[in-house]
């Protein structure tokens, strides 16, 4: 992505999050149509994430519903300074999905499906402008992830995409827990820098 393309991407991100923030404000005023609009914008991304973790359509649907209901009930607790609305929603949804996973002590046995080939896959039923923004962001995030050393990327992917704890990652990879912690810390530090522009744009 060249600098001008990045500028364009940032401006779209700002616009997109500003629209999300406006919806959150309307939700604070008990405007349920704003909840519907927010659902339309982010349901697909949220469902994709929780389905990826849970591998169960019914459970993923439950988590989606719980997440948006929590967003409605807790709209006033959203703080723009802490990140974009999409971040807030995805974080709520992922935690709920992880709670379910860990409550069942269930773990997916198959290897991570991988992150290759997904960057160019816009949502089929998403607003075209949102899909374009999402595609750009995916491309950028994927590039940042691929820029990590393989061993660091591995612990990050196991932690995020499979919901494994550091202890479980150590067991899975056969690495000492301390090594896993170090790799995870370094991975997060390295990933944070190239993605910091999205944080700036969210405020």
């Amino acid at each position, binding site marked *: 992505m060249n600098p001008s393309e990045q500028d364009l991407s940032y401006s779209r991100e700002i616009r997109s999050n500003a629209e999300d923030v406006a919806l959150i404000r309307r939700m604070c005023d008990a405007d349920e149509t704003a909840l519907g609009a927010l659902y339309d914008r982010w349901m697909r991304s949220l469902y994709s994430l929780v389905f990826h973790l849970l591998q169960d359509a019914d459970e993923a649907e439950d988590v989606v519903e719980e997440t948006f209901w929590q967003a409605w009930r807790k709209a006033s607790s959203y703080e723009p300074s802490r990140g974009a609305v*999409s971040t807030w929603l995805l974080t709520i949804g992922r935690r709920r999905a992880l709670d379910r996973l860990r409550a069942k002590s269930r773990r997916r046995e198959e290897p991570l499906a991988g992150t290759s080939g997904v960057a160019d896959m816009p949502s089929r039923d998403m607003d075209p402008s949102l899909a374009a923004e999402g595609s750009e962001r995916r491309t950028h995030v994927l590039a940042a992830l691929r820029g990590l050393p393989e061993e660091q990327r591995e612990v990050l992917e196991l932690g995020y995409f499979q919901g494994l704890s550091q202890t479980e990652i150590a067991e899975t990879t056969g690495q000492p827990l301390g090594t896993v912690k170090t790799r995870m*810390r370094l991975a*997060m530090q390295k990933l944070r820098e190239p993605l910091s522009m999205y944080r700036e744009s969210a405020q």
Partner: protein
Amino acid sequence: MNNLTHEEILPELGAVALDSASVEFCLLAREHAAACPECGPVLFAMEETVAHLGQLVPQQAINPGHGAGIRSRLLMRARLERESSSAAAPGPPDLARGVASLTGLGHKLTPGTQRVVDAEIRKSLPRHGARFPRISGMMFLAMAASAAFIITGAQLMRVTAERNSMREQSAQQVVRPDTTRPSVPGPSEKEALVAAMAGPDVKIVPLATGKAARMGRMFWNRASNDWTIVVYTMPPPKPGMTYQVWLVTDKSKISAGTFQPDSAGHAFMQAKYTLERNALKAVAVTEEPMGGMPSPTGPIVVSGSAAP
């Protein structure tokens, strides 16, 4: 702020943001970060970095009917909550008329509710420009049904609950349906409805057939002991038979009442029964002789596990 120090927390913030540290440590670290001007911004930035990874999962399409149903339920719950919270103050004229029934028992939708349902149905329809895939007539009906099911049957609930209260006295363990509701649902009933179906103490048990088709939910408000079951697209029971709801525990199967779905297969019923928070193992609906049975004898039509 707790006793954790910056030195202990800062190196772990990445794992906390990923929820890969222990649950206890994550709680402590977040508590610390919420009040710490040094750790807080780092954690928030890490959490946002982590959230970006969510963009990378393969895009997964939700079942369109289920997606529309979730949307409808959310909006209806939000609307009910808003209306109940504003019930103390003079509201729009239609609010006092309560939740309407689509069962043909005498009430029509209130204008406000009708607008929400209409909007939901319009939302479910394909638009010009093909943002959404084409939806078949059956799919449209399913979506409309989803939009409507949550608000249907207040009247049916009242009638069924009164009938159940008489018929189920013969059962050994009987959940007492809530028959105290006014004949015309008002703001207080809406408020009660919202409270019964929403809140941190509400456990939701999805109900499905053996073929995994979603056919309803049981909402158990463990604080108020309210049980609210909503089912949809149920086939009519055989002549002389009815559907009976069972709360399954390790020790017993407790009757929670009987119901008859309307012509569209929808039903909505509430009951009040005290059960220990962890006692419920499953909810099941069986087909039983009219009037209900003390214990289940017929085939399970829909059921759901209460496992977390």
